[in-house]
C-alpha cells in the first residue's frame, strides 16, 4: 500500500493579543439596557444602538400584556434613567448597524444615524434586538368575530371609560392561549388578567383555553385563583389544537380537555359557543433582526430566532466568538429570563475581554500559502468566521489565513480544502493512528 504522509510540524504557541474593551449593544429594549448597565458596572464602555427615537423597546407597547401591575414599565423607565446618567454609555438613537468586519477583540462596525455613517471599533457585540408581535391572526373565516389579545386590551380600555360600551360587550368570549408550543408565563398571565377584567366590567361569560396555565411567577397563583372564583372557565388543551367553525349565531370552538375526559369513555371534547374569539398574535423576529443575522453571519433556528438550541453553546453565545445574544431576539418573552440573559451576556463579554488582553493559541491550524488556490471554500465553510483572505498592498488576494483569536480548531476547513493547503498542527490524528487502530 502506498502512504502519503501529511507534513506535520508542531509550532503551536500562546500569544497575548490585545482586545478592545468597548462593547457594542444592538437594541435599546429591556435586554439591551440591562446588558449595557451590567457591562458598565464591570468597567466596560458601551455603545448602545437603538433604531427608534428613544430607547425602551417593544415592552412599552406590550406592557399590558406583561403587566400585572405596570411594573414592567417601571423596570424599563428606571433603566433608561440610569443609562442617561451613565457616562460610560453612549446611546445612539435612530441608528442602525449597517456593516461589520473584523473579529472578536477588534470588530469594526459601521453605524448609520441620520443619514451619516459612523465608524466604530469594539471588542464584542451583544445583540438584543427583541421581538415583535404580528397582528396577523390565523384565519377562522369570520374576521369580525376574531380579534387579537392586543385588540381585546384596546377594547377593555374603552370599556373602562364608558358605561355604554359595556352593554356592547359580547356575551360569550373565548380566549385561546397557545402559540405552537411556546409556553410562556406572559401569555397565560395576560389572558387571565384580561379575562378577569372582562368579568369585572361586564356580564359576559369568559372561557380561557390554555396549553398550560403557567403560575411560576410572582402573583400568578393568586391571579389564577381570583379568576376561577370570579367565574372564568379554564380549559386545559392537550394533543389537539382548538377547532373553530362558524355557526348561525357565532362561532363554535371545540377543545379537548383530557382532565375532564372519562377513562375509556367520553374523550373530553367540549364545544364552546361564543360570539367573540380572542387569538394570540404570533411573536416574530423583526425584519431588521433578520438582516442583522446576515450582517453578523450568525446562525439562527428554523423560526428565525437567534441562537439555535445548541447544547454546546451557552444560551447567550453565538457561533461567532465575541458575538452574544440576549432577550427577545432569542424568542424569549419572560421579563425575568430577559434580565437573567442580559446579565449572562455581560458576564460572557467580561470573560472574553477582561484585562484588555486575551491569551490565544496561535498556529493550531495553518495555511500553506503556496498551495492555497484562494477558492474560498474554507471561508464559506468555517462556522466561526475565523478565516480571512490575505491581501497584499495592491489589494490582490494571496491566500487564506486563519484568524487565531476566532478559531475554534474544529478542523472543518482542513477537511474541506480541495488543495490540501490547510493543516491542523495540534491534536490531529494521523494516518498512523488509523493503521494502529486497525
Amino acid at each position: 500500500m502506498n502512504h502519503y504522509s501529511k507534513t506535520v510540524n508542531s509550532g503551536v504557541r500562546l500569544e497575548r493579543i490585545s482586545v478592545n474593551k468597548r462593547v457594542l449593544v444592538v437594541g435599546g429594549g429591556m435586554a439591551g439596557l440591562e446588558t449595557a448597565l451590567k457591562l458598565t458596572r464591570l468597567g466596560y464602555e458601551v455603545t448602545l444602538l437603538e433604531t427608534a427615537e428613544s430607547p425602551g423597546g417593544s415592552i412599552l407597547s406590550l406592557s399590558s400584556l406583561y403587566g400585572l401591575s405596570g411594573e414592567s414599565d417601571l423596570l424599563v423607565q428606571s433603566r433608561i434613567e440610569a443609562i442617561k446618567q451613565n457616562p460610560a454609555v453612549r446611546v445612539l438613537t435612530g441608528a442602525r448597524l449597517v456593516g461589520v468586519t473584523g473579529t472578536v477583540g477588534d470588530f469594526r462596525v459601521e453605524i448609520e444615524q441620520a443619514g451619516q455613517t459612523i465608524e466604530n471599533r469594539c471588542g464584542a457585540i451583544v445583540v438584543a434586538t427583541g421581538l415583535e408581535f404580528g397582528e396577523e391572526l390565523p384565519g377562522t373565516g369570520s374576521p369580525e368575530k376574531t380579534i387579537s389579545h392586543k385588540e381585546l386590551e384596546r377594547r377593555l380600555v374603552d370599556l373602562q371609560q364608558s358605561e355604554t360600551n359595556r352593554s356592547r360587550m359580547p356575551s360569550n368570549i373565548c380566549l385561546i392561549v397557545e402559540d405552537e408550543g411556546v409556553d410562556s408565563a406572559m401569555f397565560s398571565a395576560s389572558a387571565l388578567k384580561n379575562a378577569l377584567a372582562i368579568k369585572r366590567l361586564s356580564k359576559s361569560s369568559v372561557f380561557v383555553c390554555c396549553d398550560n396555565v403557567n403560575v411560576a411567577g410572582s402573583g400568578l397563583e393568586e391571579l389564577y385563583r381570583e379568576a376561577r372564583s370570579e367565574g372564568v372557565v379554564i380549559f386545559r388543551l392537550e394533543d389537539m389544537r382548538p377547532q373553530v367553525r362558524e355557526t348561525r349565531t357565532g362561532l363554535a370552538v371545540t377543545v379537548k380537555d383530557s382532565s375532564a375526559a372519562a377513562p375509556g369513555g367520553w374523550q373530553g371534547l367540549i364545544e364552546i359557543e361564543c360570539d367573540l374569539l380572542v387569538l394570540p398574535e404570533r411573536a416574530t423576529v423583526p425584519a431588521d433582526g433578520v438582516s442583522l443575522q446576515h450582517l453578523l453571519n450568525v446562525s439562527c433556528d428554523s423560526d428565525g430566532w437567534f441562537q439555535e438550541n445548541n447544547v454546546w453553546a451557552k444560551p447567550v453565545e453565538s457561533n461567532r466568538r465575541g458575538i452574544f445574544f440576549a432577550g427577545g431576539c432569542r424568542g424569549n418573552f419572560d421579563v425575568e429570563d430577559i434580565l437573567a440573559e442580559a446579565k449572562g451576556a455581560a458576564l460572557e463579554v467580561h470573560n472574553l475581554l477582561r484585562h484588555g488582553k486575551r491569551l490565544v493559541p496561535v498556529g493550531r491550524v495553518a495555511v500553506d500559502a503556496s498551495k492555497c488556490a484562494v477558492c474560498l471554500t474554507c471561508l464559506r465553510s468555517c462556522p466561526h468566521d475565523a478565516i480571512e483572505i490575505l491581501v497584499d498592498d495592491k489589494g490582490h488576494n494571496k491566500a487564506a489565513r486563519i484568524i487565531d483569536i476566532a478559531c475554534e480548531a474544529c478542523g472543518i476547513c482542513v477537511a474541506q480544502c480541495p488543495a490540501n493547503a490547510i493543516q491542523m498542527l495540534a491534536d490531529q490524528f494521523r494516518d498512523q493512528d488509523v493503521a494502529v487502530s486497525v
Partner: protein
Amino acid sequence: MIVAERKPIAEIRQMLESHRKILVVGCGACVTVCMAGGEREAELMAATLDLVFRNDSKCFSVDCVERQCEPEFLDPLTGKVNANDCVLSMACGVGVQTMAAQFPHVPIYPGLNTHFMGRPLEQGLWSETCAGCGNCILYKTGGICPIARCSKSLLNGPCGGSVNGRCEVDPDNIECAWQLIYDRMKEAGTLDLLDEIMPPKDWSDSAHGGVRRVVREDVML
C-alpha cells in the same frame, strides 16, 4: 473557471487495468477550485483505486502541479512520470493534452470529464455561464448570455417554452435566460434594445470555425 467532474470509477478502472505503476496527477488551477482534480481529489482517486485494485498489486503515487496546461509546470514531474507505467491526469482536457504532448512515450489517461466554463451558484453547485463563442454580446443582453444560458441559444427573445421564469427543458434546474434578460433590461429601462433584430450570428469565431487560436505578436518572444 473550467468546471469538470470525476469520471465513473468503472471507466477509469478499465483504462488502468493493464498498468501496474500509476501516477495520479492533480492540477492546482480550475479543477482544484471546482473540487474535481486538485491535490485532495487526486489523493482520493488514488485511495479509491487502491481499494478497487487491492488484490492486483498495483502501485499508486500522487502528485499535483500548479497548472497542468503549462509545460514548464510539468518539467519537474519528468522523473516521476518515467518511473511509472502510466499517468492518470486529474486536469481538464487541456491539462491532459499538455501532459500527453510533454510525455509522448507514456500513456496519459483522463480522470475527469471536462464540462464547461462556469461559476459556482453556491458551494458545490456550478452552472455553465460562457460558451466561449468568440464574439461577446453581453452588452446587448443585460449581462446575461443567451448563447450559454438559453437551452436553444436564441438571440431574439424567449421561445414558447418559458414559463414562470423557468426553461421547459428542465424547469427545476434551468432558469429561462430570456426572462432574466427581460427583467434585467426592464429594470435598467433598456427594453428598446431588445426590439432590434439580432442578425444570424457569425459562428466562425467559435468552435464551428475550425480550431481557434489567439495570437498576440507583441508579447511573443
